[in-house]
């Protein structure tokens, strides 16, 4: 599959504009980045991936430094070539693509629990990995709301004992 061909396939369908970048890994395997201006265009890209018999490998999310904006990157594969689709959301929602590409199922659920970004239209509402004793969006915090923030870490507690007993 030629990346240019894929770009042509999505060009007319993406309504709000995007940036297309080609890249290569250290071993010259080609890949592409599609950076969407509007997150709602994710569905048309997902449909194009499906049309090319591709799959969603996984998706990454992160909270942009110092702002209430999340970046979400879907990593797709078509016949061994990676296509990354990047979008941003400022209202903690994205449009789920799991109904188009079932392979995106867990990736979207994880974005919900780890970042509190809701994949609208996702068929499954349950938590995946994160225990209910831990608040949703745990990865949003730059310094996580772990025991560390309460002042004393487990490392401090255990090493105190070590220092008492080993001299």
């Amino acid at each position: 599959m030629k990346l240019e061909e894929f770009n042509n396939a999505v060009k007319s369908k993406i309504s709000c504009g995007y940036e297309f970048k080609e890249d290569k890994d250290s071993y010259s395997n080609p890949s592409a980045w599609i950076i969407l201006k509007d997150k709602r265009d994710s569905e048309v890209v997902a449909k194009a991936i499906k049309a090319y018999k591709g799959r969603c490998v996984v998706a990454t999310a992160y909270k942009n430094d110092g702002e209430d904006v999340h970046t979400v990157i879907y990593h797709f594969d078509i016949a061994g070539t990676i296509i990354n689709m990047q979008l941003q959301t400022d209202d903690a929602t994205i449009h789920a693509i799991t109904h188009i590409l079932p392979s995106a199922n867990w990736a979207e659920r994880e974005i919900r629990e780890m970042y509190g970004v809701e994949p609208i239209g996702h068929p499954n509402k349950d938590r995946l990995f994160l225990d209910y004793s831990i608040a949703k969006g745990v990865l949003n915090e730059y310094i996580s709301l772990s025991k560390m923030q309460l002042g004393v870490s487990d490392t401090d507690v255990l090493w105190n004992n070590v220092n008492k007993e080993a001299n």
Partner: protein
Amino acid sequence: MTQTQKITIGPFNPELEESVYFKLEADENRVVTHVEIINGFIHRGMESLVTKKNFMQNLILTERVCSLCSNNHPFTYALAVEKIAGIKVPLRAEALRVIADEVKRVASDLFNLSMLTHLAHHHELMRDTMNTREHMQDLKEIIWGNRMDMSANQLTGTKYDLDEKKIELIIDTLDRVEPKLRDLQERYENDEIFREKTVGVGVLPYEDAIEIGVTGPVARGSGINNDVRVMAPYSLYAYRKELQPKVTLREEGDVHARAMARFGDILEAVRIIRDVVADMPEGDTYVEKRPHIPAGEAVVRTEAPRGELIYYLKTDGSQKPVRMRWKVPTFTNWEALKVMILGDKVDNVTMILNSIDPCISCTER
């Protein structure tokens, strides 16, 4: 009127290597009619931890994602760092990385097969598989210093090197192991007790496999080849095409087919190790011990024993990653379990689970 039975398995159960909780419903013939799987028992918050540790510490933390594919994680993480830093790894280091990786693949796949025969109550085959694996365990301990976690990788190369004596030891070990592997392969293929338990069990049809996006031996068992070493070759597989594995594809999509696809991987791994040590590139084993890592982002992939492993890394020029995310084969293969288990017998559930070679610690991080 049919009677629905509710059955739970786990989370702590000797038949489950790692903790997971099945809630099943079955009809009067103990055929599974509903399956719910509760995950998260091995979720350790590792994607948060990696951003609190520096790049050197993360060489080891990534290795502790999972002990069975423990070499693939630091390997792939290093590839991501090297892509961001624009560092070309010496050819000798690429060779050393591939050797470590394929040794792990043999040991990992053999462990899965031992567990499979254990669950199929074929104890003789189980012990023989386990004992064959022990040769690889001994090799790992002598060359790398630990039976599971090799600590082989270093940013920009490897921590270890091989001298003549160690290469000889590798060849000797393979000479001893290979006939045993061929014998085992023949038995796994034809043994009647084993076939009876595994043929036609836990079927994943080709179409479902495509839709769910499975990879690795699970995909190969359903007739799909998406081996990263072939589709997007990296490291020495990129420079020496003849190293790329000739993968075993099976059409049946059942527990047996997946086991045999894994056997294909094992024997190819042996062949790859032999080819690499027969023609070791000269030169350094790494570029810099503590390289500077500029701001950037990278997406890289390798083929772990269970299939495709992908790493996303984002850096800002500091000593720690801003974001690191990875996806292991089981993460996607897991959804296929529902297809495999539904309509099969309750008593086959743990064996079907085992047949995707689930790595829950990898999946849940």
